């Protein structure tokens, strides 16, 4: 895998970006333009909106995001382990087991603290 092998990835980026960009430009040029107050309003599922979206959100959302990042990182460590599972054998299994036990303590802690519940 040299950087040249990532050429398809680059092409995908350009195709995706190009599709999005061309769609935006094409609708801007080709589409009819009829403006009204309702069209320029914020879309809020058909309801009248209250204020704008720059409101302080509850810290509960932040807790969910932090826990997501932590367990995201845990999974990242499992990729290099999974592709070497046969090669590492029992030693790799046990060391990953210790790692998972350490993190499961954290999971149990937040479970018991009620961090997984939405109050």
């Amino acid at each position, binding site marked *: *895998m*040299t950087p040249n092998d990532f050429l398809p990835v680059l092409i995908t980026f350009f195709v995706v970006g190009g599709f999005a960009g061309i769609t935006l430009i094409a609708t801007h040029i080709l589409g009819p333009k009829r403006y009204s107050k309702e069209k320029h309003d914020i879309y809020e599922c058909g309801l009248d909106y209250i204020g704008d979206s720059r409101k302080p959100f509850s810290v509960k959302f932040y807790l969910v995001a*932090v826990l997501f990042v932590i367990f*995201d*990182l845990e999974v990242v460590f499992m990729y*290099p382990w999974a592709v070497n599972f046969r090669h590492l054998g029992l030693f790799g299994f046990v060391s990953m087991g210790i790692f998972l036990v*350490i993190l499961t303590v954290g999971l149990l802690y937040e479970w018991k603290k009620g961090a997984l519940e939405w109050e």
Partner: protein
Amino acid sequence: MQGVMFIVLALVTLFSALMVITRKDPVSSILYLVLTFFCFAGFYVLLGAQFLAAVQIIVYAGAIAVLFLFVVMMLNLREPEAEEGKELIPIWKPLGYAVGIGVGIVFLSYLASSPGPAIPPLNGGDEIYAMGRADFLGKALFTDFILPFEIAGVLLLAAVLGAVALAKKKRV
């Protein structure tokens, strides 16, 4: 080819990084930050660190960007213009310049003293680029670096405990 890619990536990175610190709206700052993270992933690919590139996108462009968004949503940043003109601390700006110039000097002196670029040679062959693959990393991680790996687990545990202890409302 790789030289051209590097220059293009570097220009996009510098542009998006500049946009991050000059936008008034914090949400568009974060979107440019995500673009910067993607560019970093491109650099990792050029350096032969493919797994790190994937992790960069998963963790930074995905998870860390979400964290930044939540910080913006939790802080009340509706009217950043209102604070303009009066600075919180008068020494703020010179302090920022001083830190920036200091870090720049450190970086430049490091670059000047380093033996050479850590970039793999352009025609270095597959074995150099194989080092960045997930299986190579896994072999190193689970043999020579097994203790740091387990310590990383403890660090993540500490992060879980800290996050829950700080953000969780105490049960009445």
